[in-house]
């Protein structure tokens, strides 16, 4: 495999994780435009730990993600009181604060960026992708997952059946910021070098687009969206300068013809029954 292909596949893993981090928060009916901020915290924290303190990559990643999710909880308490556009604006503000913080924060290189983290391999990146997909899959079939569906359908009614809406929202915000933190750590240790510009608002925006394109109501949608947004720019590369226009047009057409995203709950349910049928046939 060429280094170029490897690079595309590695970044696809990071993109999938970022899309999942957005999906986590979408489960509570909130759209976060600040996940690049959590990604940055995970990236800089884990990079600092492994480069300056010589901590092995696995604990460094984990501590980075825990730091990101701790900050997630801290800002989640005030932010989750907001809803709709106000929440989007709040998280956008948070993302920009983090990015500009790392632009001037000298211990992690400031505007020069931070050099040196190494050791993320493709199997490691996709190991994390697999772990998180299993987690989201378990969640989607659990009672906790159903509580989240209730919150998303009608938060007021959810509270009337005894669900602690605030706690649920905070929980998925934790999960989302943790996932973005992992994505950041893996990104840093794969690229060997990070700078604040890597965690631009556009990174958050593309992660949201992955979820919208892939399907807002199942984590499979985030997965598919992450894959598409990683491969499409490469496939369209032969178009040269026209690439980005075509890229944008595909999105516009998609929103017109299938605004709810590619994968729906019903598709997941039908596929599940189909696969189950095959297994039953095979065993009888």
């Amino acid at each position: 495999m060429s280094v170029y292909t490897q690079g595309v596949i590695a970044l696809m893993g990071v993109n999938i994780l970022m899309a999942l981090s957005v999906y986590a928060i979408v489960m509570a009916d909130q759209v976060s435009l600040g996940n690049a901020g959590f990604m940055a915290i995970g990236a800089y924290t884990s990079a600092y730990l492994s480069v300056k303190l010589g901590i092995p990559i696995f604990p460094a990643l984990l501590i980075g993600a825990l730091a990101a999710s701790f900050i997630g909880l801290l800002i989640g308490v005030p932010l989750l009181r907001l809803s709709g556009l106000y929440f989007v604006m709040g998280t956008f503000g948070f993302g920009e604060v983090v990015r500009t913080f790392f632009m001037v924060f000298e211990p992690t290189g400031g505007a020069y960026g931070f050099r040196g983290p190494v050791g993320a391999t493709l199997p490691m990146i996709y190991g994390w992708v697999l772990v998180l997909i299993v987690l989201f899959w378990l969640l989607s079939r659990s009672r906790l997952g159903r509580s989240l569906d209730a919150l998303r359908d009608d938060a007021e009614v959810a509270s009337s059946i005894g669900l602690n809406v605030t706690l649920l929202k905070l929980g998925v915000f934790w999960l989302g910021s943790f996932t973005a933190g992992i994505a950041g750590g893996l990104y840093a240790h794969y690229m060997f070098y990070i700078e604040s510009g890597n965690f631009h608002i556009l990174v958050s925006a593309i992660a949201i687009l992955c979820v919208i394109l892939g399907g807002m109501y199942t984590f499979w949608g985030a997965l598919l969206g992450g894959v598409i947004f990683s491969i499409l720019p490469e496939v369209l590369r032969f178009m040269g300068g026209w690439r980005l226009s075509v890229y944008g047009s595909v999105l516009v057409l998609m929103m017109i013809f299938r605004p709810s995203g590619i994968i729906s709950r019903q598709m997941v349910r039908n596929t599940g029954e189909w696969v189950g049928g095959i297994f039953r046939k095979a065993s009888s």
Partner: protein
Amino acid sequence: MLEIAHISKDFGGLKALKEITFHVKEKQIYGLIGPNGAGKTTLFNLITGFLPATHGSIQFLGNELTGLKAHKIAKLGIARTFQNIRLFGTMTVKENILVAQNIRARSGVTSLVQFFSSKERELQEKADDLLKRMGLWEKRKEQSLSLAYGEQRRLEIARALALEPRLLLLDEPAAGMNEAETEDLLGRISEIRNTGKAVFLIEHDMNVVMGICDYISVLNFGELIAEGTPDEIQASEAVIEAYLGREEE
């Protein structure tokens, strides 16, 4: 079991409820009637923690409800339905029931790795029983919003019952139903009372409540204008006046 004392609610300058006081007793079917806009739903919203009271007290089994969050009140044993039916639209009929069991189940992070516990099997059976009792068993796999109107009402009541409440609040349960459906519904409400629960229902159509309520209060422009047994209410001049207007001398 439910003691409402001197409850008032102001919306800006509008006094939606003025000094309301009454009690709902165990295993009682209590009716709150009044013309549209009298403040009935507002009172439900105060009891269930959807709105804060301006002043006054609401006690349920000795617990003060004012100031509590909605989910805590549900846990104390009060379940409700809504005037405009509010089902969980992305869920199937049975899922609407299952999610309402979550306060009685292990529904935290541990539920991710818990598929075959005996407790879970018991809850599934309870959900099936409830669906059968409410005549929704055949429809259990359908999307909740694809049900007919009357079935949606029944599902909403079933969802409230899945909480295993001590007190059930029904907000105009017969609204939009034809006579046969209303008759069927009233039968079900009596059955619910026979399982030991109290039922507190709101209705603007007097004829619906006269048959099944043990006790009735009448609300008009935010004030209680009468209370008593159905017979007393039917004879009350204040009530007739509120509904039909005063006769010119």
